[in-house]
């Protein structure tokens, strides 16, 4: 049995050690916020936090996260940081089809947690692993910039 913390709860699974964390989250734990866009770590739609670090869950075999602290988008929805990002993405118009967005939010949160007042270049770097095909990124960059100002160090 593989045990770890998921969005604050201790959970365990008898799925094989090579099972992708992405599939576990979606199938066994029915958390649909983490999405599959490519299965190869190139699009960021499957982004989660592992011990507070942004990672692509499609590339994580669950055998390597024994005892780790995993957070999905569902785990951060109640936070103040999320609320500010939510509002900022709306004001800046950063959401079109929405498929990249949970991953983008995770990347935004990871960036702002580490660097509360990033420059435009640092923002672009922070989301460089998240592919968006609808927005051309600029309004997402604005959203994060806005969130940084509103959050002021959150």
């Amino acid at each position: 049995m593989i045990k770890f913390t998921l969005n604050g709860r201790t959970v365990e699974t008898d799925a094989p050690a090579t099972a992708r964390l992405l599939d576990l989250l979606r199938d066994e734990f029915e958390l649909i916020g983490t999405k599959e866009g490519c299965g190869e770590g190139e699009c960021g739609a499957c982004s989660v936090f592992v011990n507070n670090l942004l990672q692509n869950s499609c590339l994580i075999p669950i055998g390597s996260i024994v005892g780790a602290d995993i957070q999905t988008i569902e785990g951060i929805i109640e936070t103040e940081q999320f609320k500010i990002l939510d509002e900022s993405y709306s004001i800046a118009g950063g959401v079109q089809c929405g498929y990249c967005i949970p991953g983008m939010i995770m990347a935004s949160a990871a960036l702002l947690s580490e660097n509360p007042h990033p420059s435009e270049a640092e923002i672009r770097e922070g989301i460089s692993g998240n592919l968006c095909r609808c927005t051309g990124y600029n309004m997402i960059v604005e959203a994060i910039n806005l969130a940084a100002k509103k959050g002021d160090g959150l």
Partner: protein
Amino acid sequence: MNLKDISTSVPKKDHKGKVSGQLPYISDVKVENMVYGVLYRSPIAYGKIISIQLPNLPEGYEAVGAEHIPGPNYVKIIKEDQPIFANEWVNYIGEPILMLTGKDLDILYSLLNEVKVEFEEHQAIYTLDEAIKQKSVSLVLASYEFGESLENISAIEQGAHQIIEEEYDTGYQEHVYLEPQGMLAVYKDDEIVVQGSMQCLYYIKNALLSALACGDDEVRVVQSPTGGGFGGKEDYPSMMACHVAVAARAVKKSVMLVFDRSEDMLVTTKRHPAKLKYRTALDKEGNILSMCVDIFLDGGANVGLSSVVLQRALLNSAGVYKIPHFHAKGYVLKTNTVPNGAFRGFGAPQSFAGIESHIGHLSKLAKIDPLEYKRKYLVKQGDPTITKGKFRDPILVEDMIEDVLNVSEYKKKKEDFQRLNQQNQRYKKGIGTSLFLHGCGFTGSGERDHIKAKVKLVKSKDDQVSLKISNSDMGQGILTTLCKIVAKELNLPFEDILYPYPDTKEVPDSGPTVASRTTMIVGKLLERAAKKLKNQWQTGVEQEVVEHYVHREMIPWDEKTFTGDAYPAYSWGVNIVEVEVDTLTGNLKLEKVYGNYEVGKVIDERIMKGQIDGGLAQGLAYGYLEKMTSKQGRIQQKSISDYGPPTSLDIVSIESKVFDNPYADGPYGAKGAGELTLIGGAPAVQAAIEDALHTSFQQIPITPEVIIESLWMKEGEEG
């Protein structure tokens, strides 16, 4: 909120579900009694199926093929040449032959590996060049010809100072919508409900009615939240819908078919690669006397929507220019490769890349700045179109050009760059422009003869108004913009207007979500319906209002002669792009990007900006970054990184402005905008690269490989 000016932005209706990740796309859905489907696909490009050997299938696992299709074995789109399950001939690598269904994906993948199909392989045609060389009528999937007679042009060419011939190639473009394609058929005894990622609710319903040979009420289609489309989910989903529906009927379970990214990249429709040939007669000053354009589109293995793509490509073959004595003809040719289809622009991006390139090269011969040369030929209000239609409405392009020249400091930059480039060996800067338009709405007489859009507004007893239309929000924001139109008309809060995801049980056919028609055509119908409802409004009573498309006849479109008004209205754009080329690596850096657009009236400023930023990013990348190739009939790029769509580090801020020019037949004056913004990207980037390197290119994408080769050849000539 009540809207003062329609353009003022509002919070989008679907924002919450999307940021939280809880809005379910089709792959997030699970239903009872559901199995997965996986497709066995042809490994060869062209040949006959001799035999199919299935492995022993465990309990609960079944095979579904052509024999299970109640109706005819083709996907109903335009022509009858796309099998649902290939059962005689296969025409491209990746063509679906049969489906295996079962509960466990791992087992399904294993079983798929054990399917053995024997083929009699035949000589395939792999490339557009090969197809052109063959000159075989059997390979022509569609063709049109129009314009000045070739005798007249010949006479003009006799008296010309110079004839310039150019051949220009454009490549594939892959949509890379973030959400791979997916479709689910929910099985019930008396009804099959198909839901999934889609742009055209009724295309799918019609395909299913044909495939299932069933009654109208035995099949129902519902759109799921759709994670991007860009045209890639216009016709392709119809085949997937047939797959899952036929399978569901056969196995009496619900069947889910979702693609891997690599599967999606290898087998779904792409932008048609094209070859454009230009033959232009010039006088001594370099002025254009006549022009002939030949367009060849690589249709892939079946025609799909290619005839309409060719039409739009031809209709745009003269760009925004009034060319004296113009002739055009075009062909869609069949090759044994993945069938190509709709992609934002639908033939226009290829044509504009070509004509802007050609005109740019002609300007160099005339020794005039490209933009100055282009302005000489710019169409004016009242001018005829190349199909003897008319540009009826005001054209603001001159104003848009003046404005962007100012904002970008084009003239100064051009001079500065020339100087800088003399001094800097390694990095060369350049600035380029593009002028473009997009005909709004379905090409030709499609709205009048085929679509015949119908919309419905339904008011509940509690005075909540719902939009009953078949159009899909795939990110472009129509859930929001169309509700805004109705809200403003009814003078109701925007939040009180409902627009549930389209369901064929509930909504009439208001047409497909394509061709930049949704705001202009469907929005107008909704505006009218809302006006009607307002006049008839009875509080506390259930009411329903219906509006039908009314065609305003101008010069009627005749497809046979290819004459008349092909579109009721046009949207316009101007791009200026600054680049820096690293001559060491051939890599390109976008420095500044400007776009001025005119789309009648903007229904939501923020949403329009999103279309500008997103469309232009795709258009620019089409010009220099995204490259997809096919070798021996096999697509070579099956991962996103191999294909190369832009990341956040590849794009820069876009400075844009939208000009107002209300169009009488659009809601609040709005015209189409969704495709326009992509079209100007590639030609502007090419022009900028040519300015930086003082070289002419004859293809897009102008990748670093192409740049290095051209620099190397130039060195060879000079050295």
